[in-house]
């Protein structure tokens, strides 16, 4: 078992070389989505869960300013974020967020892949279902044509366009590719311990199956005595 874990640790830095969909999705989040959408419950340090390196996490945290109480004159001051801070919202408060978005609040991403019916797949579909508005369709201001919805519109302007980000691993940043990657990232964000969960579950089930087999044998042996005295 120890050797197996060692193997996993040794393999980790290697697999980090090739960007995973989650890592690419994070890149899109950082450069595109995070201009409007918050991650209120996820800390910078949590990003190590998708294999982000510590220096990168520190640099990302340092690039964000967070409120830091009041200075000596009683004015609010800020500081660079620590890795243990939540990634948080691009807006200082909800009112500002609504002001910037036609009165709507861009949903927080922390559990979106869980609360959105259809999960990450649904988010991916929404992102790739923007289309030019047919001439006979009239939309209210602040609405955008999107075929993923029954009413064919959404409040979010089309966020992605081809080649918008430059993936570090050389993957071509098409809209379907970026949509898929964002979906993968949000899926991880909503279920951060899924891998540990299924791994622990496997170990627990194997243990219980072994214990159960032994108990079944023991029980059979013990109860044999009763069956013999029955005659």
């Amino acid at each position, binding site marked *: 078992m120890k050797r197996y874990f060692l193997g996993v640790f040794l393999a980790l830095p290697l697999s980090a070389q090739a960007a995973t969909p989650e890592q690419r999705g994070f890149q899109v989040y950082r450069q595109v989505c995070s201009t409007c959408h918050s991650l209120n419950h*996820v800390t910078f340090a949590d990003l190590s869960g998708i294999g982000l390196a510590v220096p990168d996490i520190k640099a990302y945290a340092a690039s964000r300013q967070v409120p830091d109480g009041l200075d000596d004159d009683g004015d609010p001051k800020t500081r660079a974020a620590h890795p243990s801070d939540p990634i948080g919202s691009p807006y200082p408060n909800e009112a500002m967020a609504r002001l910037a978005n036609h009165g709507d609040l861009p949903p927080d991403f922390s559990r979106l892949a869980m609360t959105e019916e259809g999960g990450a797949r649904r988010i991916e579909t929404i992102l790739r279902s923007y289309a030019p508005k047919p001439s006979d369709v009239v939309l209210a201001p602040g609405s955008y044509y999107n075929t993923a919805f029954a009413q064919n519109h959404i409040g979010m302007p089309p966020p992605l366009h081809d080649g918008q980000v430059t993936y570090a691993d050389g993957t071509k940043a098409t809209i379907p590719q970026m949509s898929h990657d964002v979906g993968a990232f949000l899926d991880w964000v909503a279920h951060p311990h899924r891998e540990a969960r299924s791994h622990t579950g496997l170990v627990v089930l194997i243990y219980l199956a072994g214990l159960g087999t032994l108990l079944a044998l023991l029980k059979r042996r013990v109860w044999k005595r009763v069956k013999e005295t029955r005659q």
Partner: protein
Amino acid sequence: MSKPDNTPAGWLEARLPIISAFRREYVDFAMPRNLTYLWNFGAFATIALALLIVSGIFLALNYTPSVAEAFNSIETIDRHVSSGWLVRAIHMGGVSMLFAALYVHMARSLYYGSYKAPRELLWLTGLGLFILVMIAAFAGYILPWGQMSYWGATVVINAMNAVPLIGPALASWLLGGEGLGSVALHRIYVLHFVTAFSIIGVIVLHVAALHVVGSNNPTGVEPKTSADVVPFHPYYTTKDGLGLCLFLMVYAALIFFAPDLLTLANNYAMANPLVTPGDITPEWYFAPFYAILRAVPSKLGGLILTAGSLVVLFAVPWLDRSPVRSARYRPVLRWALLALFAAFIALGVAGMHKPTGLWLALSRISVAYYYAYFLILLPFLPRVEITRPEPATLRGEGA
């Protein structure tokens, strides 16, 4: 048995005979030899409760009972507390496993007549436990302060307010006077773990009562000779142990591989008093009672029917007039009882759907049958039913 006073065990025995008591009640204790695996479910419920209490203590260390912080603290437990996701999964899965075990345990008692004399107190303490578990589960579900927590609590508090005379006073006592806010949340938090610890006390009564009257068995015929019984250990320690292992495997499969089955995704959105969810669905274990609550077009009527569906269970030992315990020897009651189980499951399914059209009709038929079973079939069926002869011994010999 008595040991010389110069050994530590002997010293303890002379002052507090717990070793001999344990031997008497859990090693040598005479059990009917013909118990099926259905008799494992009481042990399952006890283990599920133990896991709930232990995991609950660790959750309480990290939980903050205030409107501003409750949801955040749950997210912190799930994301950042070391193994917090596991502790919370054990706690959330434990509730479903506990209710599942209790429902089977109660169904088994109904089928084999385990509520009949001399086991009435066993049945009554068991029902008391069931109601305490329901209160603890309801209070616990509010604590994460998600959308379903908030709106589920709102449904129950509205129902409480509909109770004549004491309802509004009781509701405002629970809420602390300022609506469903921080004061209420703190009270509900205290209610949650006070109820949980009371459950342990009532379990002691339940098990004490069991050890006075002994276990019923599938024939419903009391053990008569030593050939009818086996000592608890090693016979039922191994049988319970094996069952428990299978129970834990189901439990583990649920929390590790299907965690989304345990919770409504809606509850991962923070409570918002301004946004009512499209349909407020209860957890599966409350669904049958929720269906009864919504089966009639009157708030008070629904409430009376729901409370009545529990109250009627307390009268079961006296409603059932048949001298025959086990449904094995009651050909008509057997089918009537299986139909009752089907009606209860139908209520559960209907409770998860909007009360319209077919679902409403199904809940109404089911709730009518539920009451008919307890109030008409149980007392009056023995007058017409021709029972099959019970065996002379529980080993099934001699008719």
